[in-house]
């Protein structure tokens, strides 16, 4: 990974005429950058180093009470990777991520295509509705959804019970783990689709009408058009959106933690985020928790490497 990193940026200096290297030896840029660097080192750098360091040490409850932590090499990692619990949680998180990110992308793209083909007033109505959902703070989102699915007075159970033969009044959606994760996935999809739909729509408006008309003249049908013209043009934006959704859904913490607080607590309702929290702050196994956090971090960085490269290219322009 590190070897490929500098390659795209090497051409940077000649490609940036706006900032000529006038004062090569001036200390000014360093002075300007120092506060930001110090802030990053304090809030991110130090904890990161602590985490790497302690993932190799025995750091449990005894160490909390003064006993010196002991260097144990890869023991924390081995403990995690040889036990079944971590793998179970990881598998659950990956499935959760795949389902949620997949649903978000499909719905988002579908809504964007829909917006492209309807009258202006209908599109603007849909856009405003989606912006409202997107703008909601996470805690408010979860609180409202908890009210929607409330077992006694929730509007969801009321509406479903109107269907013939269905009586769900009093049904608790958070009790069964599968149902719990389905609810979490629906809420997160609801909250994430607006970003995807509006971004894809913005991308669609950049597909030139000439290309579309030329393809129509050549006899392309609706589906062919989508597959041969629209999707290839949108590919870069779709890849970035998919990556961001995957990263965000893999490390989801707040929604799960809030949902657990509303109704269901226990490891069977855990995903990676809440699992690491429980391991560290809950049970005091800081060493093992640090190792688990490191594994998630490496996984995320591997996933996001493509996005990082794109941003680096943008900087080089």
């Amino acid at each position, binding site marked *: 990974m590190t070897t490929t990193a500098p390659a795209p940026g090497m051409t940077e200096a000649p490609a*940036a005429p706006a900032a000529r*290297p006038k*004062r090569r030896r*001036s200390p000014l*840029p*360093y002075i*300007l*950058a120092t506060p*930001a*660097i110090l*802030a*990053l080192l304090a*809030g*991110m750098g130090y*904890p*990161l180093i*602590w*985490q790497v360091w302690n993932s190799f040490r025995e750091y449990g409850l005894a160490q909390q009470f003064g006993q010196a932590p002991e260097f144990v090499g890869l023991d924390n990692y081995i403990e995690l990777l040889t036990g079944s619990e971590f793998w179970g949680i990881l598998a659950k998180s990956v499935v959760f991520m795949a389902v949620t990110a997949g649903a978000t992308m499909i719905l988002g793209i579908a809504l964007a295509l829909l917006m492209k083909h309807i009258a*202006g007033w*209908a*599109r603007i109505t*849909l856009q405003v*509705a*989606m*912006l409202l959902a997107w*703008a*909601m*703070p*996470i*805690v*408010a989102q979860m*609180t*409202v959804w908890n*009210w929607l699915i409330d077992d006694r007075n929730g509007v969801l159970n009321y509406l479903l019970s109107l269907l013939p033969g269905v009586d769900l009044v009093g049904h608790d959606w958070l009790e069964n783990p599968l149902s719990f994760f389905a609810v979490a996935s629906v809420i997160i999809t*609801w909250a994430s*689709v607006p*970003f995807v739909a509006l*971004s894809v729509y913005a991308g669609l408006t*950049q597909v030139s009408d000439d290309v579309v008309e030329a393809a129509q003249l050549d006899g392309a049908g609706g589906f062919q058009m989508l597959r041969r013209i629209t999707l290839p043009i*949108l590919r870069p*934006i779709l890849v970035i959106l998919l990556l961001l959704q995957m*990263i965000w859904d893999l*490390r989801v*913490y707040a929604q799960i933690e*809030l949902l657990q*607080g509303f109704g269901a607590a226990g490891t069977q309702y855990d995903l990676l*985020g809440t699992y690491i*929290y429980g391991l560290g*702050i809950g049970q005091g196994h*800081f060493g093992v928790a640090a190792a688990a*956090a*490191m594994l998630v971090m490496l996984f*995320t*960085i591997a996933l996001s490497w493509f*996005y*990082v490269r*794109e941003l*680096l*290219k*943008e900087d080089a322009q």
Partner: protein
Amino acid sequence: MTTTSLTARRTPRRSPMRHIGAAVALVLAVAWAFPVYWMVNSSFLSVTTITALTPTWVPFGGTLANYKNVLKSSTGFTDALLMSLGVTGVALVICIVFAFLGALAISRFRFRGRKALVLAIILVQMLPAEAMFIAQYQMISGLGLLNTLAGVSIIYVAMVVPFTMWMLRGFVAGVPADLEEAAMIDGCSRFGAFMRVTFPLLAPGLVASGVFAFLQVWNEFALASIILTSEQQETLPLWLRNFAQPSSLGMLEWGQVMAGSTLVAVPVIVFFLIVQQRMTQGLVGGAVKG
């Protein structure tokens, strides 16, 4: 608006399809806006209406009692509001100043270590914040700053600076350095040229970046829930979480909870609508054009 009338003219035959599309769009719009609407609707309903067997779809003859109850000092809403204002104010001011200076450095100068700094700023944004909590908790706890404004602000500044700096970098790069040089030729000092020429042009960028940083800090829940564990030191998201917990008897005044939720959400929604255009552009900017 003009583009839609154009497309309408180009495809007159497909109008039935367009009507179906519009109908689908309206159904989807209802689905997406409904939770938000339901929050506001429920916030105006009395206890008896809200616990009735059939839901009340429109709050005709609604009551403001829920809001009055939420704003009573015993709920802690105002304390949480002050705490949120304090944390956000401190973190935001520091973040904007630091990020702005940093953005000037990386977009106006080529210096040794610049590329490492840019890479660090991008990578930090990719680090899953959720995977850093344990370490950040340990650090703040070690400093004796759990349950303090300072403790949570240290982390918030570090959390928001990278994105703000990245966003400001774009704005600074958008103001040509030639403008500044022209002012310097006309007799301004470097600093004077910057203050008179570049800074005013950057004002919209600063406002936009500031609103983003504001939204991130104001809405932040996960880290706050770990560092601010005392009820006396809670920010609004934490307050809402606790306010929405059922009593020991398992009862919950949903009308009041929704009133609280509305009070937390509405200002954020308003701010968000102001900057959303840039949000879509900022995160995936350049992906199609480039």
